[in-house]
């Protein structure tokens, strides 16, 4: 166990890729020692000296065990901006990985339905990659990804590959009308509602803005998918990441310790309560 869980470990940016106008993927490599390997769904606290620290979900391929970390960061504040501007060779600090992980095993023998809203695709990419690595363990694998506009999708090259993969069903949909887009226009719940699912054989993984999680979960519940078979990734203000500072509470849950991945049965009422 790490004797100093509050001290960031230095990682160097090995590669930097602009995903959208405000999101960047960084591949990080340890400067000295590597942190423990991450599980899909976990997050790290990324530190930029002189600016601060934020919680970012790991977005890389969990089967790559060379000590590197891939994280996709959106510029929404001072720390995330500084992180997105870090060029290869630059150093950031990392703590973690923390939190609970997506339960892929629960979907074994089932059809997987992965619903990603906006940047929510980043924490879900490791699930999809994990499922593809053992594709025969699952029935259908469906990915539904929503974005505001065509150029706002993350991993566009990879998405194109996945759309062409006959073993995957991929639905991309945009919220705002856009010229030059030949795909679906509508909220993520719309292609989700159109799926013909066997509720007893469906496991769902949802990540995105909280209202989107609620609306998408409602669609699945109406299709008789059990609340326990729906996994969601939650977000709250994270500071310590290790269950000691109290900021990330959602009712009885400490999101850094009991989440970020929880099953919907546990959080349905909590998410429905205003300002909890």
């Amino acid at each position, binding site marked *: 166990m790490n004797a100093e869980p509050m*001290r960031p470990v230095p990682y160097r940016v090995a590669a930097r890729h602009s995903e959208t106008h405000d999101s960047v993927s960084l591949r990080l490599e340890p400067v000295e020692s590597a942190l423990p390997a991450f599980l899909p769904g976990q997050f790290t606290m990324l530190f930029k000296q002189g600016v601060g620290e934020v919680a970012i979900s790991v977005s890389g391929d969990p089967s790559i065990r060379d000590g590197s970390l891939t994280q996709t960061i959106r510029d929404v504040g001072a720390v995330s901006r500084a992180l997105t501007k870090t060029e290869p060779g630059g150093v950031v600090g990392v703590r973690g990985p923390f939190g609970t992980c997506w339960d892929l095993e629960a979907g074994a023998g089932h059809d997987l339905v992965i619903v990603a809203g906006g940047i929510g695709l980043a924490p879900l990419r490791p699930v999809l990659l994990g499922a593809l690595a053992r594709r025969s363990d699952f029935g259908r694998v469906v990915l539904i990804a929503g974005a505001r506009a065509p150029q706002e999708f993350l991993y566009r090259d990879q998405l194109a590959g996945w759309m062409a993969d006959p073993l995957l069903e991929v639905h991309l949909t945009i919220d705002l009308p856009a010229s030059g887009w030949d795909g679906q226009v509508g909220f993520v719940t719309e292609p989700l509602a159109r799926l013909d699912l066997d509720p007893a054989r469906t496991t769902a993984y949802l990540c995105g803005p909280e209202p989107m999680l609620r609306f998408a979960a409602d669609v699945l519940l109406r299709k008789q998918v059990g609340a326990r078979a729906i996994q969601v990734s939650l977000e709250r203000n994270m500071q*310590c990441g*290790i*269950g*000691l*500072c109290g*900021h990330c509470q959602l009712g009885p849950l400490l999101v850094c310790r009991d989440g970020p991945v929880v099953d919907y049965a546990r959080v349905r009422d909590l998410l429905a309560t205003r300002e909890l």
Partner: protein
Amino acid sequence: MTASAAVLTRAGLDELVAALIADGYRVIGPVVRDEAIVLAELTSGADLPSGWGVDTGPGHYRVRRRSDEAVFGHSAGPQSWKQFLHPPRRQLWASGGEPEPEKPAPMAFLGVRACDLAAIATLGRVLGGGAHPDASFLRRTGGLFVVAAGCTEPGGLCFCASMGTGPRPGPGYDLALTERIDGEGHRFLAEAGTDEGERMLARVSHRPAAGGEVDEAHAAVDAAAARMGRQMPDLDIRELLARSRESPSWEEVASRCLTCGNCTMVCPTCFCTTVEDSSDLTGEHAERWQRWASCFELDFSYLHGGSVRSSGASRYRQWITHKLSTWHDQFGQSGCVGCGRCIAWCPVGIDITAEVATLARLHDEGAEGEERADG
């Protein structure tokens, strides 16, 4: 639990303080300062607040002179022992070097009431019982010598009895003292709880306690349970709060609550902190500090450009629900020890026991309304 019970005189208590100091302990105990009874380092037993008591009420705390020279004749002051175990500001690390592990002198706490003893144990579960224990907290509690004080005069705001934490001090002390002042003089029944407690007791002047004296002292403490100034309603509080998320009570208390956060500062179990990173102008030297935080702070729950809990109602609900209900889910017990500090230091006198009673009444009325509607 060891068998020996002894009796110390007032002078014997001074000897105990001196012996602890001689052994290298920083002795922390109550002193009168700035018109309150606060916790500070003692240079000798003379620093204790002899003959001082307190008047407490909702939003009210005054020291007053007693008619005797009791040193423990006062209920919870504005500070709790948590400031020594979980300091208000603490450096976590500084860049460019190995951290200097703190080597604080071991501390001896003198006069820890049952409620506060329970609070220390509660903090221990939060900060020391998880997957990532707070090393600094464990170091500070590791060398601690605790002298508990049994209460015979509960204060106007005390409700330890209904929280199951007192008035008799629970396990966790090295020595427990029960102060007696009557025709037979000013003395302290002293009971050792550990070998270290026995060792300390042996070093100061004392005489063995007679069986009757032990019973008498215990009875006096137990009798205090019936004279508490307040009482938490006798019901499943954890369940009540879990069902009260939509109670009309929150808007009502929000019309009184200033969200000043005093309650979280004086509460002996509130543990929330905020991490602060800073660096010098060159960006070369960086430090990370931890400071006390409060769930009443407007940006405590800041996320995506705003706070999840921005209304006063939601922040009050968060505090009381965490303290009395979700603390059970997170740490396996209640977070409240019944010390009453939050009631005294609330500028508008919000009483946590009264708020629970209100929630219970509103909940029952709501349930009755549903029954009438169904019937």
